[in-house]
C-alpha cells in the first residue's frame, strides 16, 4: 500500500502490541480516542522528569524553559492548521472549546438571532447551543438531512440563506458515521448572510488536517487525545478579531491584566481565555504528537486510510444481514453498522472476547440515532495505524460472533 509502511508505524504505538482475552488486540475505537506513539509518551516523561515547572511569569530557569517549550507547541498547532499562534487557545478538549465559544457569545446573541446546527452532531455540539439559546433567547434550528443521514448541500445552503443564522455550528466529520461534511459551500453560504461559523473538528482534525485559512471558518475545535496526543487537552482556533471579541469564559490567574477588589481588566486573546495553570505536560506531549503527524505526508496518509476503509467496508458488507449506515463515498474511516435485529451490546461484548475493540451504543449522537430510527449501532473506527490484518481479524471474529448468535 504505497510508500507508507504500516508495520513501521505500528511499532511506534506500544499499546497496539498486546493481547486481550488471549487474542491480539484489534483496536477499532480511534474515534473515541487514538493510541499514542512512543514519542508522545517520552515527551511527557521527559517533562516530568527534568523540566517540570509552572509556565509564565516565572523568572527561574525551569519555568522559563517550560514556558518556551509550551509556547512553541502553540506555534506548532498553528502550523498544523496554517493559522497564527495567537489564534490558538488551549482548552481541556473539544467539548470545552465549544462551551467557550457558546459562553463567549452570550452577550452578543439576542432573541432575534438563530443558531443553526445539524442533526448529526455530537452532543457536545448540540447541548451548549441549547444552553446558549436558553440564555440569550435565540432560536435553535437544524439543517435538513436526507433519509440516509447525508446532507443535500444545495438544500442546506438554501436553508442558510433563508434562515440567516447568527451562527452555523457543524461537524467536519461525524463521529458515528465517519461521513465527511462538504463544508466549503456551507461556510460560503453562512458568510454570505453574515453568520459566524464553528466547525467541530474533533474527528476531522486528525484525518483531514484542514488548512483553516482556506476553509475560512471562524472557529474550529479539536481534542489532542483524538490526534495521537495526550488526554485532558484540546484547543480552539478562532479568527483573531472574532476570537478576541468573545466575552471571557473562565476567570482567574494569568488571564487578567490587573485585579483590584472591585474590578478586573482582562488581557487579550489567547491569554484572556486561559485562566489557571494549564495542562503543561499535555501540551508538550501534544507537541510531540504534532511533530509525529507532520512527518507523515498527508496525501499518503489519507490514501492509506481510504484504501483500508474501502477494504473494510467491502468485506463487511459481504456478510449477510449486515446493515451499514455510513456514507462510504466520503468518509474518514468509520463504519457504523448493525447485524439484523441483534442488539449492538451483545455483539460488542462478544467481539471484545475476540480482542476486537469496537464501540456500541448511541455514540453521543442521540438525535442522529432517532433520525436513523436506531436504538444504537456498532462502530468500528480506523486510523492510519490499523492494517488489513486488523480488518481480517475483525471480520473473522464478527462472523464467529454471528454464528454464536444465530
Amino acid at each position, binding site marked *: 500500500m504505497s510508500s507508507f509502511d504500516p508495520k513501521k508505524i505500528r511499532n511506534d504505538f506500544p499499546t497496539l502490541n498486546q493481547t486481550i*482475552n488471549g487474542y491480539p488486540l484489534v483496536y477499532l475505537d480511534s474515534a473515541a480516542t487514538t493510541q499514542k506513539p512512543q514519542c508522545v509518551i517520552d515527551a511527557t516523561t521527559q517533562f516530568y522528569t527534568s523540566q517540570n515547572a509552572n509556565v509564565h511569569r516565572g523568572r527561574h530557569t525551569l519555568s522559563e524553559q517550560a514556558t518556551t517549550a509550551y509556547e512553541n507547541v502553540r506555534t506548532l498547532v498553528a502550523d498544523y492548521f496554517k493559522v497564527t499562534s495567537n489564534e490558538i487557545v488551549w482548552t481541556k478538549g473539544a467539548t470545552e472549546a465549544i462551551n467557550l465559544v457558546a459562553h463567549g457569545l452570550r452577550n452578543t446573541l439576542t432573541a432575534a438571532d438563530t443558531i443553526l446546527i445539524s442533526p448529526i452532531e455530537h452532543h457536545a455540539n448540540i447541548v451548549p447551543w441549547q444552553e446558549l439559546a436558553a440564555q440569550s433567547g435565540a432560536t435553535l434550528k437544524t439543517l435538513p438531512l436526507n433519509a440516509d443521514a447525508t446532507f443535500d448541500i444545495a438544500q442546506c445552503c438554501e436553508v442558510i440563506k433563508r434562515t440567516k443564522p447568527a451562527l452555523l455550528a457543524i461537524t467536519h466529520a461525524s463521529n458515528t458515521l465517519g461521513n465527511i461534511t462538504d463544508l466549503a459551500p456551507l461556510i460560503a453560504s453562512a458568510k454570505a448572510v453574515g453568520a459566524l461559523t464553528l466547525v467541530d473538528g474533533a474527528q476531522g482534525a486528525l484525518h483531514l488536517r484542514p488548512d483553516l485559512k482556506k476553509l475560512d471558518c471562524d472557529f474550529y475545535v479539536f481534542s489532542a487525545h483524538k490526534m495521537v496526543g495526550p488526554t485532558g487537552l484540546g484547543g480552539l482556533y478562532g479568527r483573531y478579531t472574532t476570537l478576541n471579541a468573545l466575552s471571557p469564559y473562565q476567570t482567574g490567574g494569568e488571564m487578567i491584566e490587573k485585579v483590584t477588589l472591585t474590578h478586573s481588566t482582562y488581557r487579550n486573546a489567547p491569554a484572556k481565555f486561559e485562566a489557571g495553570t494549564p495542562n503543561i505536560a499535555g501540551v508538550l506531549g501534544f507537541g510531540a504528537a504534532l511533530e509525529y503527524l507532520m512527518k507523515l505526508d498527508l496525501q499518503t496518509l489519507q490514501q492509506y486510510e481510504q484504501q483500508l476503509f474501502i477494504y473494510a467496508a467491502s468485506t463487511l458488507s459481504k456478510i449477510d444481514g449486515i446493515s451499514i449506515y455510513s456514507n462510504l463515498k466520503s468518509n474518514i474511516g468509520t463504519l457504523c453498522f448493525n447485524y439484523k435485529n441483534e*442488539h*449492538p*451490546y*451483545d455483539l460488542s461484548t462478544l467481539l471484545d*472476547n475476540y480482542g476486537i475493540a469496537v464501540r*456500541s451504543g448511541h455514540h453521543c449522537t442521540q438525535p442522529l440515532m432517532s433520525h436513523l430510527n436506531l436504538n444504537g449501532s456498532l462502530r468500528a473506527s480506523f486510523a492510519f495505524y490499523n492494517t488489513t490484518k486488523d480488518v481480517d481479524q475483525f471480520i473473522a471474529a464478527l462472523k464467529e460472533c454471528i454464528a*454464536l*448468535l444465530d
Partner: protein
Amino acid sequence: MTNTYQLISSNIQKSTSWQQKYREIMLLGKTLPPLADILKTDDALVPGCESKVWMFVEFDLTENALVVIGDSDTRIVKGLLALILALYNGLTPEEVLAVNAYDEFEKLGLISHLSASRGNGVKAMVETIQTMAKQKAL
C-alpha cells in the same frame, strides 16, 4: 442459594470455551419469561444503560422471600439477569445477605460484567437486592 442456581452454575462452569459459556448464558436468558409490556415502564428502567433493563425487586411479606423480576432487550444482559434471579429469588433477607453475587460471578469468570463501567444494569440489580435485604433483615 437455590438448587436451580447450583445447576445453572455448574453448567456454566463446565463450559470448555468462553463461546460455550456465553451460549449457556444466552440460552438462560431465553428461559426467562419476558416482562409484560405494561410493566416495561420508564420507572422500572435502570437509567444510564446502553441495554434497556427493567427490574422489580420486592419482598413477599407473607413468605418472607425475595421476588425479583427483570427483562432486557439484549441477550447477554438478559442471561445475566436470569442468573441473578436464580441466585436470589425466593430467599429470605438473611439468606440474601449470605450470598455474594460478586464471588459467584468471579467463580463463573463473569466478574467484568459487574464492573461499574459496564453500566449494564446487572450491578444495579445486585445492589438494589442487597440494600433491600439489609433493610428487611433489621
